[in-house]
């Protein structure tokens, strides 16, 4: 039988895991959550509406899993400074390296809701409306979380409105150039 939406799950695993790691800041907790999410999606596949965004559906399941486990147990303290960085692929050292490490460290310090929002609307290309749907909050809440998160990152990275920026133009150009290669 063709057209089983479960066949599409595999496509979203890398993004799902990236989202999980950004939420949990812990690789093995993230993998547990991805596993739970995939099992839930698999067994509840009839609740997925064909033609809608499967990635949004999966991200929603994952974040619900995350927040319910966060409510259940006060989790052990996340390794704010280390784990998000540690999970990154090794990259060639170049002039953007230090800044990127700083960025990851700064990002890991944001509150869960701000990290989540920025991943959804800043990194993953979901609209504010989609993110609001996924998080079960008003669009204005998403906008405000995104603004506060970006503002905090700007402060942590010393990206002041008028001052010289920390991230070199070279880095920005490289990032923009790389964007063209991503199917995401």
């Amino acid at each position, binding site marked *: 039988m063709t057209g089983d939406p*479960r066949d599409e*799950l*595999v496509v979203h*695993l*890398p*993004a799902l*895991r*990236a989202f999980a*790691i*950004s939420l949990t800041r812990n690789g093995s907790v993230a*993998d547990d959550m*991805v*596993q739970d999410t*995939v*099992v839930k999606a*698999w*067994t509840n596949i009839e609740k997925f509406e064909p033609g809608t965004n499967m990635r949004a559906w999966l991200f929603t399941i994952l974040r619900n899993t995350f927040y319910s486990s966060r409510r259940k147990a006060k989790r052990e303290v996340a390794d704010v400074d280390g784990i998000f960085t540690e*999970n*990154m*692929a090794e*990259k060639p050292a170049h002039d953007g390296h230090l800044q*990127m490490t700083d*960025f*990851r460290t700064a*990002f890991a310090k944001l509150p869960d809701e701000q990290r989540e929002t*920025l*991943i959804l609307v*800043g*990194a*993953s290309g979901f609209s504010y409306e989609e993110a609001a749907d996924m998080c079960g909050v008003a669009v204005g809440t998403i906008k*405000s979380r995104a*603004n*506060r998160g*970006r*503002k905090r*990152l*700007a402060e942590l*990275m010393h*990206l*002041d*409105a*008028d001052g010289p*920026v920390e*991230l070199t133009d070279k880095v*920005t150009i490289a*990032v*923009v150039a*790389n*964007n063209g290669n*991503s199917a*995401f």
Partner: protein
Amino acid sequence: MSNDTPSERARQQIDANLKRVFREQEQAELPDRLKDLLAQLKASEPSEQDGKS
């Protein structure tokens, strides 16, 4: 409402970095247990069942 909003330039840089960090994470290799998970789910489901064996 500008006080809560970082400058446009900062915002663009932040989002570019968010995309880059996220993409790098996506490109990391999946652990085996996640790679194998879908095959296991498929195998454990001879027919329409929601239980695990």
